């Protein structure tokens, strides 16, 4: 683990007296390697290491009798600051139904998350409505309908011949008409570089004015996470992120990259395929940090 590897670099720091660029380079190299192996973006890693270096060579460590402890503390602090505060809740609309729109790349886990959110909202005493706005993927509507049945949540669908923008708009009317105080819009997976489909999301946002727009990201995403998050955020101004497939062993460095480039909170993590309450957890920044550090 990184802390084991750091122990040996720290041993070399003991008795070195003043910390210099030279004698902390081993330590910085170990942290850098850990980050890159954990899929943290290259540039994000570089900036992070740079901040560690500046602080390590600065006043707070100067003259310390235990520089290695200071550096460990600095790494921990910088990581916590980057990872963000404790999980933020999903905002509730001040009036009218709370509309949550899910977006993300193909296969990220949106439809599964939609059902899990419906379950969570029901447990909180709310009355959710699931919306089948993916008219492209074969059997996408059927998939959501089956999940709706499993979670005893009604699914609003207008088939595959109506535009997702119209479906989304109609779903809010439906919610108002039938007393649903929560609307969860499942959208089709799309590339952040697909102009037409990104424009479709912008149009849904404009028509429906969602209370929350959540970017769904696969925890095993590599260096590209930064591009995806940046584009979705620029186009839609997302309110938060949900990391999926966290029940695997991907270190999840994408979380750091996404936090760095969007400054938006990671609200939940999805930890399993089953649609059950336990499979959607609140995000814990310290747990994510130690997972990334390995």
């Amino acid at each position: 683990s990184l802390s084991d590897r750091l122990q040996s670099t720290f041993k070399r720091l003991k008795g070195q007296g003043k910390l210099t660029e030279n004698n902390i380079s081993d330590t910085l190299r170990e942290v850098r390697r850990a980050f890159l192996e954990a899929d943290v973006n290259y540039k994000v890693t570089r900036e992070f290491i740079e901040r560690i270096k500046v602080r390590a060579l600065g006043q707070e460590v100067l003259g310390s009798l235990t520089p290695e402890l200071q550096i460990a503390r600095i790494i921990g602090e910088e990581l916590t600051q980057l990872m963000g505060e404790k999980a933020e809740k999903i905002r509730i609309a001040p009036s009218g139904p709370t509309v949550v729109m899910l977006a993300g790349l193909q296969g990220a886990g949106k439809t599964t998350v939609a059902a899990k959110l419906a379950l969570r909202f029901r447990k909180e005493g709310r009355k959710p409505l699931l919306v089948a706005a993916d008219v492209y993927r074969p059997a996408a509507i059927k998939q959501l309908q089956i999940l709706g049945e499993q979670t005893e949540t009604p699914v609003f669908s207008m088939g595959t011949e109506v535009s997702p923008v119209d479906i989304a708009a109609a779903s809010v009317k439906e919610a108002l008409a039938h007393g649903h105080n929560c609307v969860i819009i499942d959208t089709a997976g799309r590339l952040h570089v697909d102009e037409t489909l990104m424009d479709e999301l912008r149009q849904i946002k404009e028509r429906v004015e969602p209370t929350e727009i959540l970017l769904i990201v696969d925890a095993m995403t590599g260096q590209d996470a930064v591009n995806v998050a940046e584009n979705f955020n620029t186009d839609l101004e997302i309110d938060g992120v949900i990391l999926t497939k966290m029940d695997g062993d991907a270190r999840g460095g994408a979380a750091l990259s996404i936090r760095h480039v969007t400054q938006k909170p990671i609200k939940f993590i999805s930890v399993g395929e089953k649609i059950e309450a336990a499979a959607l957890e609140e995000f814990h920044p310290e747990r994510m940090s130690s997972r990334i550090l390995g």
Partner: protein
Amino acid sequence: LRVGRRIDEDLMEEIEEILIQSDVGVDTTLTLMDNVRERVKSEGLSDSSELASVLKSEILNLLGVDVPLQIKDEKPYTILVLGVNGAGKTTTIGKLASRFIADGHRVLVAAGDTFRAAAEDQLSIWCERAGAELIRGGENAEPASVVFDAIHAAKHRDADVLIVDTAGRLHTKKPLMDELSKIGRVMGRAHTGAPHEVLLVVDGTVGQNALMQAKIFNEAVPITGVVVTKLDGTAKGGIVIAVNAEIGAPVKLIGIGEKLDDLRDFAGADFVEALFA
């Protein structure tokens, strides 16, 4: 990179950055950079354009020669498709079926994902589009028994190819990996040499975790080829270099979109070009 620049540490660092940002990974990048530095020294190179060709040849060395997916006369030639959740298995099977049918083969597909909501319906639509026949199990069928029945159906109907879809699964779930091994064994018992082709489908956006996926899936059922999907995005899929080195299976196909014909043979040279595009 190609413009006439001197080969210096700055250039080396820029190359390292490109490789890492392409998901090539730390170890593989270090190996590549060592090999490149060695050749720069031994060949006395000084210009960046010379460096570019050395770098590309070193990556191609690691990737090996291009190995296309070939249908052999096994009646049926059986192809098992596996990989983690959402990688693109079902969609890739639709594309493969379409390609084989265009080549004049008779194709049967087995709905081996009996777990996920609407998995069989999704596959059914793809088979319809491709012109392939789908073999589904009854309610609550076991994947292994669906596959067993599909092999018999394929023999009976004189199919040239049988493609087996499986449920997505994380390699960290031992019971699910055991289920895959069982499917492999059942196939072998139902038809000599089956599965003749075992394709690991890897999402092009995945990072270093693909290495673990490849290793564990390979232990469950020996992989004969890799398919990298979603390369129509901005991810480079550089992790396949390490995957190839780890399990010795060549990348045979790439997915470049969500339509029936969005499948291409993997070409190492094009892949390397794209890394530095």
